[in-house]
């Protein structure tokens, strides 16, 4: 605790506060802009911050990281165009809420949920970092695979009303996920000799295609009676009912996001998907999911921010970057001659705790910064719809291009957009495509890695206690799901 208080003394100096504010503002901006992520921004800023005091620079970078997590939900909710893979899940119900006239509430629950999750997860980071490392290291490939199985079992609840069409979407996503060079053997799979496909299909491009382009094509096919505006109903901020539906998902999202983010094979995709699945299971009206349920925005957004804090655990304690942004942050540490790892807390105590304390401060700043913006963002929806959809197409293509600066990605985006339109036309759900694309390759890699380490011995999943426990839980959930489905009939 003494360390943390000393950290606050560092973070609250006027100069560091200003760097924190600059970072959070910039972070919110790059989060809102599609295709520009925190990783690229920090990388761009690295050379110019060379002469800066390391603490100030790292406080700004941390602010950018957290800020981008806040800003990322905005385009997902308003334009159905997720800019980063961590906000793909938010688009599912967030944009539906906007169409129902509750864009303000969706943005507010995302911002407040991010604040709650960010603050709690930072608290967890300051208290449990050493413990989390031990837990994280206990996760080998067998355990990861078991965790992925659990995730799959949970997210099959997201397959939609028609099981057959749900599986169609999921298998499509899984197939797309295998495209590219196999990370374990270096073999090219499903690439048909096209060099462009060697690196696989980026989930962000697919999300932009399925959501933004697919939706626009769908709207166009419904005929031209769309000169009316998107409605804005009720209060701009959240109603009492929306508050009471939001706070539990915030807490659950935090509880899921932080530990999963701290795992060395972390990332924000798995925690946000799992949060969505859990909220749907626990919701009083699960049928609202996919049509604008506030729980489906509150939970994943909290999980997203909590996992961002979780990512800092392996980064600070092991020197292990688990996301692109963390990798750039690691480079930032090294630029100042600091080596994150077991000795960082001992050698650079003031700096580390200063940065951690600045995260608390930054979270408060972000809430103050983002809530007033809600009103401004919602005004965007009062643009005439032909222009709104024209703008969506331009922003989507800019986002798809900026990810890799590749014109081929624009063609992929268009093709996926047509697929998204066709899926909508036959009434198949969209979310399972994303689930398959993100979870499938990760699960396959861990499965094969575990088998390679055990030399082909499949019993490894049952003999490792952690993996066995996770698989048992998955089996229990799956059988409970089948039994309860029978009971309903």
């Amino acid at each position, binding site marked *: 605790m003494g360390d943390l208080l000393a950290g606050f003394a560092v973070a609250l100096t006027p*100069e560091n506060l200003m760097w924190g504010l600059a970072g959070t503002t910039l972070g919110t901006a790059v989060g809102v802009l599609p295709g520009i992520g925190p990783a690229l921004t920090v990388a761009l800023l690295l050379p110019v911050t060379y002469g800066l005091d390391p603490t100030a620079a790292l406080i700004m970078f941390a602010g950018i990281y957290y800020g981008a997590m806040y800003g990322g939900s905005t385009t997902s909710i308003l334009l159905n165009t997720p800019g980063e893979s961590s906000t793909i899940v938010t688009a599912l119900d967030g944009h539906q809420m906007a169409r129902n006239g509750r864009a303000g509430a969706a943005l507010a629950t995302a911002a407040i949920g991010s604040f709650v999750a960010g603050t709690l997860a930072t608290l967890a980071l300051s208290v449990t970092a050493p413990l989390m490392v031990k837990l994280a290291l206990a996760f080998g490939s067998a355990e990861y695979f078991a965790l992925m199985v659990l995730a799959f079992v949970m997210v099959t609840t997201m397959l939609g009303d028609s099981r057959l069409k749900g599986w169609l979407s999921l298998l499509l996503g899984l197939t797309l996920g295998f495209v590219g060079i196999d990370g374990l053997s270096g073999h090219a799979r499903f690439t048909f000799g096209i060099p462009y496909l060697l690196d696989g299909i980026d989930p962000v491009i697919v999300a932009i295609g399925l959501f933004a382009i697919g939706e626009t094509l769908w709207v166009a096919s419904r005929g031209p009676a769309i000169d009316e505006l998107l409605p804005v109903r009720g209060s701009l901020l959240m109603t009492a009912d929306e508050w009471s539906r939001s706070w539990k998902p915030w807490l659950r999202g935090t509880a899921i996001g932080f530990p999963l983010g701290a795992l060395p094979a972390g990332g924000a995709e798995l925690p946000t998907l799992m949060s969505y699945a859990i909220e749907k299971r626990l919701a009083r009206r699960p049928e609202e999911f996919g049509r604008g349920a506030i729980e489906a925005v509150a939970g994943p957004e909290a999980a997203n921010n909590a996992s961002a804090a979780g990512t800092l655990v392996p980064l600070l304690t*092991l020197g292990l*970057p688990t996301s692109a942004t963390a990798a750039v942050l690691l480079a930032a540490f*090294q630029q100042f001659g600091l080596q994150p*790892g077991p000795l960082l807390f001992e050698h650079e105590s003031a700096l580390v705790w200063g940065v951690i304390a600045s995260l608390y401060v930054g979270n408060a700043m972000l809430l103050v910064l983002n809530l007033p913006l809600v009103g401004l963002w919602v005004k965007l929806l009062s643009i005439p719809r032909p222009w709104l959809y024209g703008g969506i197409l*331009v922003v989507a293509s800019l986002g798809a291009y*900026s990810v890799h600066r590749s014109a081929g990605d624009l063609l992929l985006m268009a093709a996926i957009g047509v697929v998204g339109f066709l899926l909508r036309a036959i009434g198949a759900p969209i979310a399972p495509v994303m689930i398959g694309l993100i979870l499938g390759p990760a699960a396959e890699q861990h499965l094969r890695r575990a088998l390679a380490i055990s030399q082909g011995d499949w019993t490894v999943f049952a003999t490792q206690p952690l993996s066995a426990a996770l698989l048992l839980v998955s089996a229990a959930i799956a059988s409970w799901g089948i039994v309860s489905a029978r009971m309903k009939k």
Partner: protein
Amino acid sequence: MPGVLASRRVETTCRAYNPLVRFLVVAISLLLPTLVTGQPLAITAPAAPGGGWDQTARAMQRVLAQIEPGVSVQVDNVPGAAGTIGLARFIQSERGNPGALMVTGLVMVSGVIMNGSPVSLADTTPIARLIGEYEVIVVPASSPFRSLNDLLEAFKKNPGSVSWGGGSAGGTDDLLVRLLAEQIGLPASSVNYIAFSGGGAALAAVLGGQLSAAVSGYAEFAGQIAAGELRVLAISSALRVSGIDAPTLRESGIALDLANWRAIVAPPGLSAAEQEALTARITRVATSAEWRAALAQNGWDDQFLTGPALKQFLLAEQSRIEDVLRRLSATNSASPTRLALTLTPSSLPNAIAICFAGVWILTMMSLAGATLPVRFQGLRMTGAIIGALLILPVVFVSLGFVASSTLLFAIAATTLRARPFSVRSVAADLIVGAAFSLALFLLFTRGLGVALPGFP
């Protein structure tokens, strides 16, 4: 240490200003990266931000900013397929441009072979090899293997029982273990190599005791080695490296050394004078005190090499890597692997694709009699927008972002309009689209320094 002195100087100058002024000065310099003038230089880092190539490019950018103040140096990240995507683009679009450079290295040599890339490093103009990072073989502190010989004994007895972890397949880490196996008389394919997304990811697995040993650049493991959590069994340098307490492979009787070198190349089609000028410029960078400070900071070994010696070196590396990869793929396909039960790279994807096809047919059958949830009133409108999107990539590259986005915007808006379109509405759509696209363009290129195709 001149680097330290320089940073002291910066510090003392800065202290003279109050924090607000200092903040504003740096903040403004961040927001207006385009104000600097001079002979511009664009360095392609054919990898995502944060990786080794990116770090090298950005270190060069930093040093150039210090020794040639006022010169604009831009780093472009073109990630993908072990750098071969960036390589292809560099050769194609920068041909004959003396203001373009690209960072490359050992991994690209194997990437070109493994990905069957139609272009290779031979198509570029090599300028200089800059740095190298040596590989270390580490085991957890609790491991029974006390020395490299312990590890190799177990490896020889039962190759499959020793799991080696490191970065991606075909990368430096993988190559080192395969070359090591061949040196002690085992086929390269007998190595049970577990590829991770990078040395850092393998770090967690070796610390957690899931791997027998991990192989990667020294810097990746430096923190854990210093903390005593990892034991270094060997380093892949020819001679001992000062500051690293580890025997070389040669000391253990293995005639092998390997450095993860990084070099800088120029595009093809440069005149001899242009090549000389670039070489001189890079030599100035590589011999500067600022560059030496950057090397020390990153733990990179200075391996500066230019001219004919560099060409010879590149040829030698090319043939050594080609050989081991060829033997690897030959033996891999010939012998049924002892991991017969293990999934092959294609078994799961094929199974899933077959399932997908099956479910697709079932879905189509179920849809045959049913009425679809849509009435395709606006199929023509959808078609128009799809058409606009399909020609977008071509227009985007040839006409630039602003013009192509204006067109896309106008086509979409005009198509979606309820009233029959008039000259006035089309003009309005074009003007709004152009204003919106131009604003986005300026924001991205000027404000954020992201390169977009500009104007024709």
